[in-house]
C-alpha cells in the first residue's frame, strides 16, 4: 500500500471513529451522518476523475476507502458509488451526478428503455430508498444499455439483507433517463467490489477474534493459549490470507486495464467460499456474547453472509469461471487469469 493509500485509510478511520455501527432498520436504513462526513472530506469521489466532478486519485485509493469502510461496517453506498456505478456511468459516457449525492447500481430485474424513459421493476437494489441516483441495466431497442435515473423522489420496498442494508425494489414508470452503452465489465466490477468488502471484513473479523481469544480467560488461561483455539484461528488466517491475495490480484488486473471478468469471478468465488469458515469459527471462538447484538461481531458477520450472495454468489461466478477453464488444456487458461 502506498503512502497515498495509507493517508486515505487513516482519514477514513478517523471519520469512522465518530460513527459507531448501528443496527439498521427500515427507520434507519443507513448512516447519513457518516456519508455527510465522508462527502465533506471528498471521500465519496475518490478514484473518480476531478474533471467529471470526482475527487481524483487512483483506483487503489478508491479500493482502500471501500475496504476501510467495509472493515468498519460503515452503512453507506460507497462501494457501489466508487467501484461500480460511478465508473460505469463514466464509461457509458454519461454525466456523473454530484458525488455528495449517493449513487448505486441496479443489475437485476426487468427494465426497458425506450424514447428517453425507463419502465419496469428493478430488484435487490443496494441502498434502495437511500440513493439519489441509480445506474440501471435496461433493455433498449438495440440491446442492453446503462440508464442513469434520478430516484430521489421515488419510493422503494423495505427489503434488506441480513445486516439490514437496504436491498429493496423500485418500480420505474416511464422515468426520464440518460443512457449510454452498457460497460461490459459492470457485473464483474460489482462482484469485485463485494469481494473487496468481504476480504476487508474477514480480515477484521480475524483480528477481533484473535484479540478476543487473548482477552477471554477460561480455566485460568486466555482462550488463545488452548491449542484447539489456536488451530481454529490459524485456519481463519489461512482463509483470510488466501482471499486477500486473490482480491489484490484482481484489483491489480483492473488497474492495468486487463480483462476483468474471470479474475473478478475467481475473487468473488474465493471470498464467498471463505465466509462460512471465517464467520463460523469467529462465532465459535467468541462464544455466546458474539451471538448477541450487544457485541460488535454481528455487524461484520451478517454483512459477510449477505455480501457473498450479492452481485452473484459463488455458484453463479464459479460456473462462469468453470466454463472458461473447461476444455482440453485448462492450465494455460488458469495461468493467464491473474
Amino acid at each position, binding site marked *: 500500500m502506498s503512502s497515498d493509500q495509507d493517508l486515505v485509510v487513516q482519514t477514513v478511520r478517523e471519520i469512522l471513529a465518530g460513527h459507531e455501527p448501528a443496527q439498521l432498520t427500515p427507520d434507519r436504513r443507513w448512516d447519513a451522518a457518516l456519508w455527510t462526513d465522508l462527502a465533506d472530506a471528498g471521500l465519496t469521489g475518490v478514484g473518480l476523475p476531478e474533471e467529471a466532478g470526482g475527487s481524483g486519485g487512483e483506483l487503489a485509493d478508491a479500493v482502500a476507502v471501500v475496504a476501510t469502510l467495509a472493515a468498519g461496517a460503515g452503512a453507506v453506498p460507497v462501494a457501489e458509488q466508487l467501484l461500480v456505478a460511478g465508473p460505469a456511468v463514466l464509461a457509458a459516457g454519461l454525466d456523473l451526478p454530484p458525488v455528495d449525492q449517493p449513487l448505486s447500481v441496479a443489475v437485476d430485474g426487468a427494465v426497458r428503455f425506450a424514447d428517453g424513459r425507463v419502465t419496469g421493476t428493478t430488484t435487490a437494489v443496494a441502498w434502495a430508498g437511500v440513493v439519489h441516483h441509480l445506474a440501471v441495466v435496461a433493455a433498449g431497442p438495440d440491446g442492453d444499455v446503462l440508464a442513469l435515473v434520478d430516484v430521489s423522489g421515488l419510493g422503494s420496498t423495505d427489503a434488506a439483507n441480513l445486516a439490514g442494508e437496504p436491498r429493496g425494489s423500485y418500480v420505474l414508470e416511464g422515468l426520464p433517463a440518460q443512457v449510454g452503452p452498457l460497460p461490459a465489465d459492470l457485473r464483474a466490477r460489482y462482484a469485485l467490489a463485494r469481494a473487496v468488502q468481504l476480504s476487508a471484513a474477514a*480480515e477484521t473479523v*480475524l*483480528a477481533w477474534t*484473535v484479540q478476543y*481469544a*487473548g482477552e477471554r480467560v477460561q480455566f485460568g488461561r486466555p482462550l*488463545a*493459549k488452548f*491449542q484447539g*483455539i*489456536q*488451530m481454529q*484461528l*490459524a*485456519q481463519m*488466517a*489461512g*482463509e*483470510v*490470507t*488466501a*482471499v*486477500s*491475495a*486473490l482480491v*489484490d*490480484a484482481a484489483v*491489480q488486473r483492473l488497474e492495468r486495464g486487463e480483462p476483468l471478468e474471470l479474475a473478478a*469471478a*475467481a*475473487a468473488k*468465488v*474465493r471470498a464467498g*467460499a471463505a465466509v462460512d469458515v471465517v464467520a463460523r469459527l469467529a462465532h465459535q471462538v467468541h462464544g455466546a456474547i458474539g451471538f448477541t447484538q450487544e457485541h460488535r461481531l454481528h455487524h461484520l458477520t451478517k454483512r459477510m453472509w449477505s455480501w457473498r450472495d450479492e452481485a452473484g454468489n*459463488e*455458484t453463479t*461466478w*464459479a*460456473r*462462469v*469461471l*468453470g*466454463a472458461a*477453464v*473447461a*476444455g*482440453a*488444456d*485448462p*492450465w*494455460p487458461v*488458469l*495461468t493467464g*487469469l*491473474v
Partner: protein
Amino acid sequence: MPSTLTLAPAPPSAAAEQVRLEVREFLAKELAAGSFETHVDTWLSGVDPAFSRKLGEQGWLGMTWPARYGGHERTAMERYAVTEELLAAGAPVAAHWIADRQSGPNLLRYGTEAQRREILPRIAAGECFFVIGMSEPDSGSDLASIRTRAVRNGDGDWVVNGAKVWTSNAHHSHYAITLVRTAPVDTANRHAGMTQLLVDLSLPGITINPIRILDGGHHFNEVVFEDVVVPGDMQLGEEGAGWHQVTAELAFERSGPERFLSTFPLVAEFARRASSPAELATLGRLSARLLSLRQLSLRIAAALDRGELPDIPAALVKDVGTTFEADVVEAIREVVDVPASLDSPDPLGRALAEAQLHQPGYTLRGGTNEILRGIVARGLGLR
C-alpha cells in the same frame, strides 16, 4: 493481518512468463514423443533420471544458484514458473526434486566451498539426487526428539548410528542430508546439540529398506545407519546448528507450488469433460482456490528473490494448499460418477484412484497441517 503472515504482491516477471512458455513447449514435445505419461503427485512417485538430466540440460535445475556452482543465476520467480509447469503437466520430476528444491539451497547457505563445488554442479545437471534425513521411527512431528547419533572418532570423522524414515526415493539417491544428535539432550534447550551431515548413501553400514505406500508404490524407505563413518569434512554447517539449519531448509521445503498442485493432473482430466452446470461450478470453485494459492505462492517466490526466508507465510500456504489438493478428490467425486480404480479404462477413474491413494500424504509430508497451524498461530502472536 500481522506482518509476519502477509507478504507483498509479487511484481510481474516477463522473464518468468518467457521461461514458462519454453517449458510448456518442451513438455508438449516430450509428451508427444512419449517420453513420459501424466500422473498425479509425480514429485513423489515420478522417478525418471533420464528426464531429470534433460531438465538439467535445459538449464531448469539449480536455476537460482551462482554460475560457478553450475547454476543459472535466474530469479526465484523464474524457477517458480518452471516448477509450476512441470507439476501441472504431471511430469516425472521426483528424482531431482528434493536436491533442486532444498538440498542445493541448503548447501549454498551452509556448505563448505569444497562441498558446493563437488555437489552443486551435479545437482544442476540432473545427475545427483538427495533425500531428506529428518524423520525417524519414533520422531515425526516432534523432530527435536531424534535419536540418530553421531560421535567423533579419533580421525575427526563422524560415526553415525540410528535410522531415518519416509526417505523418499533413497534407493535412487546419492546423498541424505541427515539430522543427527551430536550432543546429549539438554532438557532446557531441546533444539541444541543437533548437526546436519552430508551422508553418501553408498557408504558401508547403510541399509535401505523399502516401505510401500497405499498404492503399493515404493518411494519411502527406512535408511538404517550402523557405525557409518561419515568423513569430518562432510559435516554440513556448524556443529550444533542443525535445528536452525533445518528450519531454514523447511522454509524452502514448504514454499513451493507442489503444495497445491500434486492433484492438478486430476483437475485437468476433470476439466476436459466438465460441461454440466454442476461440473462447471465445481471446476470454477476449485479453480478459484487454486488461483488464490498461486498468488500466495508467487508472493513467497518474490520474497525469496528479495533475500527473505518467509518460513511463517510458507507454513500458512502449505496448510491451505495441501488442504486444497486433498479436497480435490471429494469435490470431483460429488459431481461425477466414475469409480476410482488404477485399472479404470477411463483416465479420470485412474487419476481419481492415484489422487485418492496418495491423499493421506498431502497434509502430512513436510510438516503436518497441525504443526503448520501451530506455526501460523505463532505468527498471529498466540504462542
